[in-house]
């Protein structure tokens, strides 16, 4: 009987969707609360934090404060510059290192891979003091360059690890065909291998981007000056020891979600796999 498996798989689909929806609700709930409350008056936030803004409680005072106080547009720009630049370098150098590790046989190849993978397990924050000393010595304190350098270093291990696994799967024949067709090693890397590992690149990009955008630690230590503040650091202005301007904090955080959401949408379009299908049989 065929109908049985059909209902069965429907039931299974229902169950799995229920679980996924439940997880989505749990994961999105805090975000939702932040966004909803950012549109409410201060006393409404505390009186009923879960209710939606109505005509009485609706207020844009938080956004007005954010726009008026501090140079938030500038903070956004800083965050964006740091995130995009770090992402670019992580992907470029990560992919290059991964290509070398997966493509060329040389002495110490696997040891090098292991050494690079070690960085995944050891948090870079352990080296904060040394990094600060380094930046002071290099005169890079309070520059975006300092942040970009640190984030590039932070993102590379995972990028190399994931990308080298994917690059090993790119067929050798394809690369050799390229060599015979007259491609240089750089052209093989940029025109053959990179397009084929695009889904992996997108994955790495998303994993790398979020922690950089959200980071508070390194901006606070390495670049706390007004002209180099990032959004997360800028939002701290409204959190005081005694008085916290919750409207402003929530508005700033809501705004901070937007750019990273846009970046995510860009990359997730690339996450569609299956580009390699049909290359080799």
């Amino acid at each position, binding site marked *: 009987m065929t109908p049985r498996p059909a209902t069965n798989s429907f039931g299974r689909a229902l169950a799995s969707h229920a679980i996924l929806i439940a997880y989505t609700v749990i994961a999105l709930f805090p975000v939702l609360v932040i966004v909803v409350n950012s549109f409410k008056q201060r006393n409404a936030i505390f009186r009923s934090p879960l209710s939606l803004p109505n005509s009485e409680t609706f207020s844009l005072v938080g956004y007005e404060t954010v726009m008026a106080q501090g140079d938030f547009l500038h903070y956004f720009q800083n965050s964006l510059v740091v995130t995009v630049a770090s992402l670019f370098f992580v992907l470029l150098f990560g992919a290059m290192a991964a290509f070398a590790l997966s493509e060329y046989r040389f002495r110490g190849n696997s040891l090098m891979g292991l050494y690079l993978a070690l960085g995944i397990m050891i948090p870079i924050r352990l080296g904060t003091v040394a990094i600060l000393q380094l930046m002071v010595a290099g005169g890079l304190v309070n520059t975006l360059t300092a942040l970009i350098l640190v984030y590039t270093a932070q993102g590379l291990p995972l990028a190399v690890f994931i990308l080298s696994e994917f690059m090993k799967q790119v*067929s050798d*024949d*394809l690369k*050799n*065909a*390229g*060599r*015979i*067709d*007259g*491609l240089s090693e750089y*052209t093989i890397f940029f025109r*053959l291998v990179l*397009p*084929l590992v695009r889904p992996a690149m997108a994955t790495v990009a998303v994993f790398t981007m979020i922690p950089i955008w959200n980071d508070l630690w390194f901006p606070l230590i390495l670049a706390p000056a007004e002209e180099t503040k990032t959004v997360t650091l800028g939002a701290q202005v409204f959190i005081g020891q005694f008085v916290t301007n919750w409207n402003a904090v929530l508005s700033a955080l809501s705004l901070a979600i937007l750019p990273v959401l846009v970046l995510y949408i860009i990359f997730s379009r690339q996450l569609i796999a299956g*580009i*390699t*299908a*049909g*290359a*080799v*049989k």
Partner: protein
Amino acid sequence: MAEVAINGVRKNYGDLEVIHGIDVSIEDGEFVVLVGPSGCGKSTLLRMIAGLEAITGGTIAIGDRVVNSVPPKDRDIAMVFQSYALYPHMTVEKNMAFSLRLKGVDPSVVAERVGTASEILGLQPYLKRYPRQLSGGQRQRVAMGRALVRDPQVFLFDEPLSNLDAKLRVQMRTEIKELHQRLKTTTVFVTHDQVEAMTMADRIVVMNDGNVEQIGSPLELYDAPQNTFVATFIGSPSMNLMEGAIRTGEEPAVEAGEMRLPLPKEAASLGEGRKVVYGIRPEHIELSDRGIEATVGVIEPTGSETMVFFRSAGHQIVSLFRERHDFRPGDTVHVRPRTDLVHVFDSETGRRLAFG
């Protein structure tokens, strides 16, 4: 077009030598097939000609230029891979045009060459498609088209038909041979399939364990294999080989256990008692009134011919009949090798022994 000269070529991976000094000279316009069991070094040799593997010792020359240290792109060769290796993110047209574009060839010339190649291969309807939208045979043609547009001095094929189904393989075999007859470009073709080798080659290089066993035209290899390896490797079903000792006399023969295998008269010159391997091809065994008594075992009819496995005095003999016989398993018959078509090999070295 050019000749390819392979002189004393060796290949080491660390301490392990996988190719032990190979000499092959391939003439201009020739279709040469490298054939051998897997791991015999045929693909490695091809990749050395292509420049994808470094040459440990010896020289390879294409035309009159030694190419040992010339990178693949400057060797003026084109290669077709077993996995086709099409660029998956490019259309058929771009796949074929890619190498010419990189060289900076005039776009109108590129378009013309791609047009000609796709016409020869019947690829015009598929030019705008991506490799993933093509069938295996079509992909194979695109891979050949990509080689064709470059108009190279030498074509290299690395088991290009292995991924195709049996029917398509036979069809592509003919197409490749036709293409070669039209273009007359020097071609080196690697395969593990001796039928492919026999049907396509002008000359075959039989390789085993990193050595060349024999070089010759398909029929030379078939009619006069230089050793037992070539004798069993070429031809399907394989040649029957039986060890024994020479008995001279009125009717010279090889005595293998209780079996007396007849030899031509001239073979008496090999000497009484000499240990040899007696070889006879399955189709050179005929039924006769007197001869070796044998029991019919398995019968495998294919329509055009019938393969019969006989048992006799502890040996298994395979024979191939074009005509139909009314055997049943268990029947006892008499068979007789055609003495003029017998092969004799030295039992120690496996080398062919000449007589007469």
